[in-house]
């Protein structure tokens, strides 16, 4: 098997060695190298800038894209975690809480609903699904202000629920799960389990769920990223800074820094090192789970 494949690959390589093919590869390489530089520069800048002190940041010896002679990363991190009674760590914990509860909740709801839409024909199914498709086109930020007014009547603004509950809404996740379940879970398998006397719940948990795993990882990752990166919703909902997630917290520091420089202390260093620390968890999650989400993302283009 492998030898056949190797032979075939060698054959295609031979045919690709024609001048036109090689030229195209050169173009592809040059284009990708340019893109890699472009996409890495801000991240590289963030890493370099995190190691600088306040002077180095604005007037350092190495310029914007190289290290200063003072390596200040450890001090910056220490200051980040202790500044203002360690509010950064609190924000970090809030982000983890919102992203995990919102992300896991949205995923569970999507799995149940996607499977229900794909495998059951019930009264109202078509209407409900048409509404779901329409809602994918509704800009979710347009709902933030009315949701805020609604929740303030229920005295739920400025609580964790004001951020978590609206994050459970994920029409696109349901759509992805439905498309995936329709193809990946064969009806015959479900019927066979039913004939053997399994209840609908058991059919779902023991037969369907294992088959849905790639889509579950993808939807989970997408909804965790969505909640972790969300800014508008928590910005509108929360007024006490101890409930802020990282995005709103760093935004607050930025406002303080640009208006009065944080009362004599340069907040810019904290903002930069705080930004770096805040992107680490998701970058690690994407790198370690890349096999799962890369296969799962084909779902959207199955059709």
């Amino acid at each position, binding site marked *: 098997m492998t030898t056949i494949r190797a032979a075939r690959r060698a054959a295609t390589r031979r045919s690709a060695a024609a001048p036109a*093919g090689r030229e195209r590869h050169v173009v592809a390489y040059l284009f*990708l190298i340019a893109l890699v530089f472009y996409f890495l520069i801000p991240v590289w800048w963030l890493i370099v800038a995190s190691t600088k002190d306040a002077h180095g940041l604005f007037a350092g010896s190495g310029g914007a894209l190289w290290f200063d002679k003072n390596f200040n990363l450890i001090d910056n991190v220490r200051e980040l975690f202790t500044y203002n009674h360690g509010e950064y760590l609190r924000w970090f914990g809030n982000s983890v809480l919102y992203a995990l509860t919102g992300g896991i909740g949205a995923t569970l709801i999507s799995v149940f609903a996607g499977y229900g839409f794909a495998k*059951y024909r*019930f009264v109202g199914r078509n209407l409900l699904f048409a509404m*779901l498709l329409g809602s994918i086109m509704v800009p979710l930020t347009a709902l933030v202000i009315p949701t805020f007014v609604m929740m303030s009547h229920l005295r739920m603004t400025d609580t964790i629920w004001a951020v978590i509950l609206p994050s459970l809404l994920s029409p696109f996740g349901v759509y992805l799960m439905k498309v995936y379940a329709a193809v990946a879970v064969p*009806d015959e398998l479900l019927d066979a389990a039913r004939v053997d006397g399994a209840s609908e719940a058991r059919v779902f948990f023991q037969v369907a769920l294992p088959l849905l795993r790639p889509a579950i990882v993808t939807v989970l990752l997408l909804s965790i990223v969505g909640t972790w990166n969300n800014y508008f919703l928590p910005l509108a909902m929360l007024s006490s800074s101890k409930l802020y997630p990282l995005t709103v917290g760093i935004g607050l520091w930025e406002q303080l820094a640009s208006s009065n420089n944080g009362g004599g202390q340069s907040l810019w260093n904290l903002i930069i090192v705080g930004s770096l620390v805040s992107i680490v968890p998701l970058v690690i999650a994407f790198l370690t789970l890349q096999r799962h989400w890369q296969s799962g993302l*084909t779902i959207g283009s199955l059709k």
Partner: protein
Amino acid sequence: MSVIVTAPPGQAEVVEAPVRRRRRARERHQLAGWLFVSPFVVVFAAFLLAPLGYALYLSLYTKGLATGTTFAGFKNYTRAFSDPSFRKGVWFVVRFSLVLIPVQMAVSLGAALALDSLVNRFAKMSRLVIFLPYAIPAVIGALMWGFLYSPTFGPLKQLLSVFNTQAPFLLSQGNVFYGLMNIVTWQWAGYYMIILYAALKGIDPSLYEAARIDGANSWQIAVRIKIPMIASAFVLILVFALIGTLQFFTEPQILGPIANGTITPDFTPNIYAYNLAFSYAQFNYASAISFSLGIVIFIAVYVFLFATRKRGSLFT
């Protein structure tokens, strides 16, 4: 991923089963189906239908200090659509979408095609790097570029001082459009690239071999086979880009404090609605703005889907 052809519904049912048992099974089926979708229905009703309905309700009333809450009919809407701030904001995001989206699509399509044509470690690494910004919050992305744009301590200064020219401020009145365009492209092109790349990987390679035998070169294969074959994935990301761009909020909101006044409180419709609600407590009018923006976006996307005639194949 294996694609399994399923039997059409109904055919799989046991035909000889007694009528009564079948009816009971069907009832069980009904109930189970509803139970599976019910959590979604609850969330959908509470956080989509209710806010939408409530926004509509709020937008039909006005709240005055002396008069209290009074029914206003469509007055808030006529006010919104004749409000220069709202119109300016809508015009900005429409213009922004028209310039940004083609650029974004070109970058992500080009990257996906280039990655598809190379199979090695460099391609794998580049794919991850291009996708990386998706994992970075828009708040952080905007902050990083804000620093890089600085004419006094950004890298442009060093670069241009070699040529004895002064660095431009990319958030100035004339440049802010392009400054923001660059940030959004950087933030989202990788995500779109991954979707297109996944679609390209789903094409049967024997098509390329057949085309090559017919004498097609790589360029022709890309234009005649690859791009048409991923059309539905392309429409999907165009819809995402359109929805995302028209509700533009985070990046200008974050860059506002460091942009020296070029990003006004009515820069985009969403920023305007936010400021109306939270700086001026005009929740009724802000709801009307939100609702109007929602309608504008919904219509724009619907018209787009209609124009590309992909409605049937994309969302069924």
